[in-house]
């Protein structure tokens, strides 16, 4: 057999091996990143929830949906509002944070001072970050987005956790927002 032929066979084997390795990797990666679609009971939104996040039935109700991250102290929750007095998402956010900071609000509440205007699938919202001392005495942070829809309806998406906000897994909220769908 000529070396040319041998060389061709080797090339084919190498390419086949690479394809197999790539396929295995794709299968593995797709398994790790597998997510399930959650559609809220009132059909207002759908979101891809990673497999290692657990829906909390006892924390949730018709307007509030809560997920706990497994193996980490994070949580994700979404809440709807039927009637709010605020004209804009920013007003809604400001009124909320004023109450969080006031009497009966969150302990040691600290707002990072910035409202960031963002858009989630065509809906404008306001994102902010704050920290506070939880009931358990732990330092907690929340990254919250406020939305104000027509007819005084409103919505909030929250990603929360323990410790320092700067050390959070940024991809969680990013992924949630990327796959977010409004259903109205």
């Amino acid at each position, binding site marked *: 057999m000529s070396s040319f032929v041998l060389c061709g066979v080797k090339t084919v084997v190498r390419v086949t091996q690479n394809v197999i390795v790539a396929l295995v990797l794709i299968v593995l990666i797709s398994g790790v990143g597998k997510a399930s679609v959650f559609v809220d009971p009132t059909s207002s939104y759908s979101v891809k929830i990673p497999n290692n996040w657990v829906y909390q039935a006892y*924390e949730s109700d018709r307007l*509030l949906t*809560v997920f*706990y991250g*497994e193996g*980490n*102290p994070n*949580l994700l*929750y979404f*809440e709807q*509002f*039927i*009637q*709010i*007095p605020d004209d804009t998402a920013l007003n809604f956010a400001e*009124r*909320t944070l004023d*109450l*969080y900071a006031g*009497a*009966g*609000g*969150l302990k040691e509440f600290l707002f990072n001072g910035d409202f960031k205007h963002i858009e989630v699938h065509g809906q404008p919202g306001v994102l902010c970050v704050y920290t*506070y001392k*939880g*009931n*358990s005495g732990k330092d*907690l942070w*929340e990254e*919250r987005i*406020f939305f104000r829809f027509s007819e005084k309806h409103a919505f*909030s998406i*929250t990603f*929360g956790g323990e410790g320092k906000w700067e050390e959070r897994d940024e991809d969680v909220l990013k992924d949630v927002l990327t796959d977010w769908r409004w259903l109205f």
Partner: protein
Amino acid sequence: MRTKIVMTFIFLVAILCSLLFFAPVGMASSLVSGSFERSLGGGVAKEILNQYGGEYELPIQQRLWVEEVFRRLVECTERKDVEYNLTILNSSAPNAFALPGGYIFLTKGLLRILVNDENKLAAVLGHEIAHVEKRHGINAVFRQMGLTVLLEVGVIWLDLVSADVLRVGSVTLLQLLQLGWGREAEFEADILGQDMAVRAGFDSVGGVSALDSLAEQNKFDLPMKIFRTHPDIKNRRTRLEENMLSYWSKLHAVTENNALKRLELSRISHQNGRTDPNNRFNLKILSGKRGGLELHDLQSDEKTIWLQGFHVKSYNWSPKGKYLAVLGKLDSVSQIWLVDRYGYVIKRWVSSEKLGQINDMSWSLREDMLALDIFKDGKEEIVVTYVHTDVYIPITDDHGGNSSIWHDNYIYFFNNGRWYGRKMPETRAVVIPNPIPRVVERKRILSPTIIEEGNTIRLTSPSLILP
């Protein structure tokens, strides 16, 4: 001119004094201005705050909920010269007060006992507001101070508040607060508070269940102060229970053909359609000595026996399938056992001389009430009871009747070939105006510990683990 003014003043004071002297104390105090009541109450309010550890700051969401219940009640008040305000006191001792001028106080200890039940809270707040509406506090102060101050009162009426009267009044008010406003005042405040709660869209059962919660707490704690200032709990509970029927509409005969047909159909479906509304369980009554119900769980395709030893006659799922009411006999005594979806018996209604012989039952659409068809004193009657509170509302009101059926906000029953109906009082859930997002904090998760023992695995009772 000046002489004329002085004469008019003396004339007015004389008329007032004679009015006050001959009028009952209640009427006398109704002549006192709202601003005097407010001055008197305001002074004592500061003292109350000192005595009870100051104001307690409720978490925002709970505060908004309490404020909304309070707002709805205040909307139903009649006195427009009073500005009501509510303060939560930082005290674990369960107690509530009302001071002249509209100062209402509730301790955080009492709020804890009322466990976020809006009907209970409305009843307690309604009771306190009623004291102010009926001027029980100011009346008691006048009774205590005697008629010697009537002249002073005349001056007060003319809005020339005397510092001395305020000082003496405040001391008297503080002393009286420890004793309560008197037995009749408490009864009156109970009923007026119940009226107010119903008008504000709360369930009239709140007063009874609040008293039950307090009595339950009293069993475990040291006798509570609230029982010393509010005597005769049993009597008050009976009066509140007896008054509940007054909030239902009067009996009316059903004459419209379509309605009659609908009732007949409902009657047939009530007798035959006793299936699980969630279509998960099939039930079969087991006859024989052991009795009970055979439950076929269609989801897991497993069969289990519920209520063994109970000789079941019939059963009835609540409209949304939360509860199962089972009628049967134990030791030849007819009774209803209320079971949840896990098969736990959570309540029993047993035939007795007081309640009568229980023959059947039907569920209200809200799932919180059950109509019991009973036989008592030689005739059939229907009483409505609550799942969570032991009250009995005699719906047939001595007219007699059977085959109770609920439809919309009405209960119907059959008597001598005719259908009759009554409308239940309407209730409205508390909706917080201007809500803000809730802050959810991760809770510890209840989970069993897995213990491996050779080839077997044993699970302990769930215990708390950290995430």
